[in-house]
């Protein structure tokens, strides 16, 4: 229900003043998502795979993660898509750990790391905040996810 809390808070005039927001007096309320934009979206690339191919080769650090209880853009969708990149595997699939528990599973490819977050939904840091933070720290450090507790 958390997005309804945000809609209450960010429509408060004192919050908008404190944030220097809505200075032009927008004629509609602040909403978490815009119906107009989603319904009238014009151009949408069919696939991101060519961009991934190009950027993975350019040396950028790329991590793709997936909360495994999401059914909207689920883990099987991501895995199926990524498999078509045909990237060589650097580190084979293994469980990563935090707090004496499996935090998820990961596989490292040449130019890209894939990781799941066990028990997390679409918004991974909302449902599994600690696991998400461990994942982010590993990403920033450029290190593989922890193999042991």
């Amino acid at each position, binding site marked *: *229900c*958390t997005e309804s*809390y*945000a809609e209450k808070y*960010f429509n*408060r005039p*004192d919050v908008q003043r*404190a*944030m*220097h927001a*809505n200075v032009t007096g*927008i004629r509609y309320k*602040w*909403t*978490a998502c*815009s*119906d107009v*934009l989603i319904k*009238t*979206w*014009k*151009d*949408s*690339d*069919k*696939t*991101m*795979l060519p*961009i991934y191919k190009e950027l993975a080769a350019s040396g*950028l650090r*790329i*991590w*793709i*993660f997936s*909360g495994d*209880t*999401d*059914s*909207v*853009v*689920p883990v*099987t*969708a991501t*895995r*199926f*898509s990524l*498999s*078509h990149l045909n990237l060589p595997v650097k580190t084979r699939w293994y469980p990563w750990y935090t707090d004496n528990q499996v935090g998820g599973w990961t596989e490292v490819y040449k130019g890209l790391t894939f990781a799941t977050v066990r028990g*997390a939904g*679409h*918004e*991974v*840091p909302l449902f599994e905040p*600690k696991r*998400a*933070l461990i994942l*982010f*720290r590993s*990403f*920033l450090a450029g290190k593989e996810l922890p193999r042991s507790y």
Partner: protein
Amino acid sequence: SREQEKDRIKALPGQPKVAFSQYSGYVNVNQSHGRALFYWLTESSSPSPHTKPLLLWLNGGPGCSSIAYGASEEIGPFRINKTGSNLYLNKFAWNKDANLLFLESPAGVGYSYTNTSSDLKDSGDERTAQDNLIFLIKWLSRFPQYKYRDFYIAGESYAGHYVPQLAKKINDYNKAFSKPIINLKGFLVGNAVTDNQYDSIGTVTYWWTHAIISDKSYKSILKYCNFTVERVSDDCDNAVNYAMNHEFGDIDQYSIYTPTCV
């Protein structure tokens, strides 16, 4: 720095005391159309925020707010209480490790706006990536302390488009400079929209393997749906609609084992 100081947030209503700085405001990305994007920067809560990287967080939709989701539900330092009267601290905020820049993009999302109404009806991937790049360049001239700083992009869902598209734009833009001001080091995306065809097959497979839909629906969807075409057939529509309307039940599709919000 005067412009930067104008954007400083003294304190948000209902906010607990914190030691890190926050800024928010608008950056104009298209003068003639009057498109302006709204950002919220929450600096790192570490004792040395100037040594920490900058992370730009984008949400998906398309059309959803980075402030609503990324900042207030996911990685930001504050959570909002039920009545919208107070904020409390997020124990696992990512601003321990990075300076977080939340961007409401494209124009029409959250506080971001355009003075040209037609902009709201012809937004798309290409303009969003271009506006986001312009935003970053202009934002860095307002916050020059972040020029050359290690920079990362993150996001989820439809930001699976925004994030790599912006990374590519930055990569191409940076080719003209020997020492680019946008020091892009990498990006990470979660539950990201990646490929229409493979995502769709993977999604239907997830529904079936998690016992959300019947064998019959699974077989019908795979039989009738051609996920490579723009317009789906009526048979495909019917098969998917049957599964969603008669088999899914009232679950939170974004987190299938979580109680729904009543």
